[in-house]
């Protein structure tokens, strides 16, 4: 490869207006193709560092900053109307009377019904934060006819605790996936449909 692209092509350009000769800016050996491979490597490494850093911050700071046990916050959640049956979590922990529909061994923990205000389900907020919440489907707005497509609800989220050993799924037939991080558990109330 070293014999290839000996003068590379990155030679001219300069500042000259019309009529002025192009001045070679880099007369030495410059293998553009190798330079392009190097650029791709640098871009991939840089992006990987940026995304790994972002992921690390999300994992270790989300539970510490603002998401404190006993606090309340406004959350926006995007849903489809089938999510009352699509979303489920599995955990052996019961926090403040709230529990998942399934135990960690994936056996149903009693009757699984979204109408149960104590049954936890996994939700993603519009800011990509995963949480376990109970009571969303019992809000009065959610008992009205819901939009056919994706919609957003705004709820008050009262954080009762944190859970680490849990698994979640986003479709009734999908297998449960273990969550590799600590996420908040709480009650969702005053949910209003954003129109």
């Amino acid at each position: 490869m070293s014999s290839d692209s000996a003068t590379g092509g990155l030679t001219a350009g300069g500042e000259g207006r019309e009529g002025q000769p192009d001045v070679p800016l880099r007369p030495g050996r410059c293998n553009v193709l190798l330079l392009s491979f190097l650029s791709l490597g640098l871009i991939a490494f840089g992006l990987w560092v940026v995304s790994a850093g972002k992921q690390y911050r999300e994992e270790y700071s989300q539970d510490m900053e603002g998401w404190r046990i006993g606090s309340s916050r406004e959350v926006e959640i995007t849903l489809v109307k089938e999510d009352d049956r699509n979303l489920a979590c599995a955990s052996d922990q019961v926090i403040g009377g709230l529990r998942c529909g399934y135990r960690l061994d994936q056996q149903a923990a009693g009757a699984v019904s979204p109408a149960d205000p104590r049954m936890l389900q996994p939700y993603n907020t519009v800011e990509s934060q995963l949480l376990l919440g109970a009571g969303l489907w019992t809000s009065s707005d959610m008992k009205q006819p819901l939009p056919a497509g994706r919609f957003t609800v705004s709820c008050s989220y009262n954080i009762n605790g944190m859970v680490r050993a849990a698994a979640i799924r986003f479709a009734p037939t999908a297998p449960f996936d273990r969550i590799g991080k600590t996420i908040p558990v709480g009650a969702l109330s005053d949910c209003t449909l954003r129109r």
Partner: protein
Amino acid sequence: MNDAVSTRASGLASAGWKAVVAWRPRASHPLTGYLLALMILGGVVLRIQNVGYPFRQSFDEPQYVAAAHQFLIGAPDVGECCHPPLGKLLIGVGMLMVGNNPAGWRFAPLCLGLFSIVLVYFIASSLFEDRRAGWFAAAFMAADGFFLTYSRAALPDMSLACFVLWSLLAAITARGWPGVLACAVLVGLAASIKWVGLLVSLPACFAILLLRRAPWYSIVSFAVVPFVHLAIWMIGLALIGHPNGPLDVLTEMRRRGQIHLGFAHGVNPLESAWYTWLVLYHPIVIKSAQVGAKIRLACSVGNPVLWIAADVCLVALPVLGAAAALSPRWRERWRGWFDVRYSKALAILGVSWVSMMLLWFTRRITTYWYHYLTPWGIALVLLGGVVARLDRRFPKGVLSFVLVVLAVFIYFAPVWAEIPLSLSAAHRRLIFPMWQ
């Protein structure tokens, strides 16, 4: 000792600064250079910011992410019906590096989207032997919504465009057998993302023969293309536990080819004929999400100013070329405007654009907006070269053009990069119903 270290450090810093100054975007008007740098910086930031949003899959992403996941876990590839494995394997590499999450799904297209900006710089610089052509081309690609949106989606189209551009760069800079062989390997990889990538072998051979920097007979190296393609298939089939001998690969290719050719015209409302791409008729909204009262959109409509300018180049240059070929008077004029080197660069880019459109001209298969991504990258290189030439004669005119491109880039950025905005603001930008 400390003095020696500090002297060395300041020497290095000074050398680094000199390199930055020497390589910064330059044009005849100093302000143009700064605007180009701003466009590139803005394009890079917009591509990277919130790439993990939305955290669900949109448009065709479920097919490709599911297929990539199947390659990673060794399950049969039922996620995606019709394409060779490399595009999905690349998405899988991103998922290995960053995780099976939205940022992981979109990692590889984002890398290759950013890399494409670097590639068009190298292609235009090398082809026109003028670094300002490279800076113009890179800035135009950075400030274009079509490339921006596809850099942020877990789809194979960005990867295909990138490998096609990379193959062209290899052909243009090849000085001997190793360069031509590298070009052939890249062509094989492009064809292993989507079969249409094979067409880049035409302009690659044309460039090698026209530029005469490598021996003409070195194009024999293109014999490795089918072997590269076969190797990618064999790796892909092995990963999902299928029989992966050469005959098994042929059977699988034939099966997928039949599915691809079997799609009926006029069924999918997103379908669009190739000639509509030239007038931005039916771009696709590849992501959309409601955020409270606002929406976040990724509409793949291109930068309209760049589109018009590139269309003018694509129409005017062949007309002028034909006039120069037929009339001695126009030939003299052509020679006055363009030297031999520049004419060859225009010819290579023209052949490249036409070659990458050949399959779509035939209308053998159903065509969609995103099929124009690769030819559009070539059109942007052409535009970069033309504007760089005009910059020498009309620096103020080019400055005005760049200002307009930048203004349109800023105006459209929210509907390209999923920045929250109101529905009415989105409709003001996406004025035509087919854009929404």
